[in-house]
């Protein structure tokens, strides 16, 4: 019985349930939100330390043995993602205390947030393909509700695109699971990986691989089916956008990494080449889309798409170094993008707008916020010595090592364009003279209430994370080396699940 591997799923479920029980009191819900996510982070760290000691931690739910029951399993990748879930949950929960209006709180913001975290953690930790689908649905259900909370027109419009595309993806995912089950007769991922090597029809395996690629690609917002993301991510409250950008798209990335290292690793020349080009197009379209935008959150949303490309590139190059780079990018991007979204929310609070045209002179009156933005923005663009530099550096080096010059070139050029977009925000929001009609009194007025402090605390934690990842990245890289080693040699995973200890 290994409690640590189930706790990251179970804690948000309990926290969400308790929030529903005390639905009358937002006071208790707020406390539960912070304590629950803090406990989630702690359980993630516990799991990580257990995984570091033993390699894999496995639990057979309800004592039904694999491959018949549902296996919850953590390797280093899952454990790191669980820690990330806890960290993002905690930061967003703290930030929400200062930024979510009371009407949203009454309509179940906190229970939905916990449900979302449970879905995300479940997706990271399950070792069963159908169970993965169930967690995806749990997550989507919560995200639909969070996206439309507030019921503004733009939100509905974004939500329709989001829901349609994601349901489409779920349908493809479900049919692929059906075909997979028809072919190998099992749903346990380790067992599938084991049996698939004996299957004759390699053509069918490739068809399935592409189907899964499309399903997860939509969830991760990869080219060509990414357009739901920029259409919807800027519409909800900024804490929700931050949670989505930081965690939700990463679940798609995680699923791609899991499937294309564990299960579809037979015909790498075929599957990973498709991934490679998809990654390239994702990077370029995302960054070009961002360059054309003049709304703070829309720029950030488009950039999420472009950054997803780097993560897929890491997987597509399929060398240990590339996997390290891609996964380092996942962590780095979660911190940075969440941070940038949260800062955009803070700027909105000070000025009342997200439009770059209507903003200006924030640096003169709020130099602290400007510096925080600059750290996150430069990190996103990949300026040393911040976290983004190392993430890009590893991927580019991995690309050069195996001679993928074109895509490495694209990755570097996209980095430059990212810098351009970030500089654009910097120049427009923080640097240029305030335009006519901007409410300067509001910007100058001293902010010293608890709301502002909650928001700054959330941002502060992330900035600390970004700096830590840049200046003290060695232990993280060492951890990721173990992770890449496990991903490149899935035998350990298969053995842990099927031959499992109890």
């Amino acid at each position, binding site marked *: 019985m290994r409690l640590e591997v189930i706790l990251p799923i179970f804690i948000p479920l309990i926290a969400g*349930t308790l929030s529903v*029980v005390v*639905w009358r009191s937002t006071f208790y819900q707020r406390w539960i939100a912070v304590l629950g996510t803090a406990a989630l982070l702690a359980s993630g760290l516990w799991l990580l330390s257990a995984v570091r000691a033993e390699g894999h931690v496995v639990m057979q739910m309800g004592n039904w043995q694999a491959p018949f029951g549902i296996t919850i399993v953590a390797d280093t990748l899952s454990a790191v993602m669980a820690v990330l879930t806890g960290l993002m949950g905690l930061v967003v929960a703290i930030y929400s205390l200062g930024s979510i209006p009371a009407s949203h709180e009454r309509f179940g913001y906190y229970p939905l947030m916990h449900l979302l975290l449970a879905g995300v953690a479940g997706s990271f930790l399950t070792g069963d393909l159908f169970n993965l689908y169930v967690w995806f649905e749990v997550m989507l259900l919560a995200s639909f509700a969070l996206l439309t909370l507030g019921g503004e027109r733009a939100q509905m419009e974004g939500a329709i695109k989001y829901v349609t595309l994601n349901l489409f993806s779920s349908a493809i995912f479900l049919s692929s699971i059906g075909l997979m089950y028809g072919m190998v007769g099992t749903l346990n991922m380790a067992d599938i990986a084991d049996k698939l090597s004996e299957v004759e029809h390699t053509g069918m395996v490739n068809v399935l691989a592409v189907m899964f690629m499309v399903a997860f690609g939509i969830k991760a917002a990869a080219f060509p089916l990414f357009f739901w993301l920029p259409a919807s991510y800027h519409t909800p409250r900024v804490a929700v956008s931050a949670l989505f950008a930081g965690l939700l798209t990463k679940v798609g990335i995680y699923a791609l990494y899991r499937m294309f290292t564990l299960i579809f690793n037979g015909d790498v020349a075929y599957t990973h080449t498709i991934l490679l080009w998809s990654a390239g197009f994702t990077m370029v379209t995302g960054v070009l889309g961002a360059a054309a935008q003049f709304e703070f959150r829309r720029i950030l949303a488009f950039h999420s798409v472009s950054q997803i490309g780097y993560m897929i590139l890491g997987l597509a190059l399929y060398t240990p170094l590339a996997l390290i780079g891609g996964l380092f990018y996942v962590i780095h991007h979660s911190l940075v993008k969440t941070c940038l979204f949260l800062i955009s929310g803070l700027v909105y609070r000070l000025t009342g707008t997200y439009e770059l045209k209507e903003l200006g002179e924030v640096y003169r009156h709020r130099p602290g916020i400007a510096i925080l933005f600059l750290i996150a923005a430069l990190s996103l663009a990949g300026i040393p010595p911040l976290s983004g530099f190392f993430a890009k550096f590893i991927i580019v080096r991995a690309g050069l090592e195996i001679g993928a010059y074109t895509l490495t070139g694209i990755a570097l050029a996209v980095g430059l364009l990212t810098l351009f977009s970030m500089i654009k925000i910097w120049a427009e929001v923080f640097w240029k003279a305030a335009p006519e009609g901007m409410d300067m009194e509001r910007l100058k007025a001293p902010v010293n209430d608890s709301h502002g402090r909650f928001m700054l605390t959330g941002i502060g934690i992330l900035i600390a994370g970004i700096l830590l990842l840049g200046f003290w990245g060695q232990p993280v890289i060492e951890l990721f080396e173990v992770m890449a080693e496990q991903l490149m040699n899935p035998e350990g995973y298969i053995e842990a699940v099927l031959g499992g200890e109890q």
Partner: protein
Amino acid sequence: MTEVKAKVIKSNTVILHTASLFLLPLQLLFSMFLLLRGHDEPGGGFIAGLVAAGAFVLYLFAHGVDSTRKILRVEPHDLIGAGLLFGVISALPAIFFGQALLTAQWWSFYLVGTEVKLSTVLLFDLGVYLVVMGSILTIVMSLNEAEE
């Protein structure tokens, strides 16, 4: 109190009014039967919860929201909360016996010569029962109130 509400609910007739008073306890009893039967035979928390919700919805059509709230005694929201709590708690006892989470635990004892089987499965079913009933009543009641 029912006379006041009668103005609001147009479909109210003497027959429905009287019948709902008799049907409510019967339907609730039937829902209990379904819930317990779900142990080994078709039935269970979900369908039982639907039947129970149906009982209260019928009463609501005949007597209005306010009097339904009065006989329900609790907010439907609280039913959802309690149901979820039961569901989550049902996973826990396995931990204390050193087994994997969600492993079903059974306790049986004899009460007046009959074997009574209690289990975490039943607790989970009860949770489903309450969540289903709570959700449907929440929806129907808020729709009804929005109409008024």
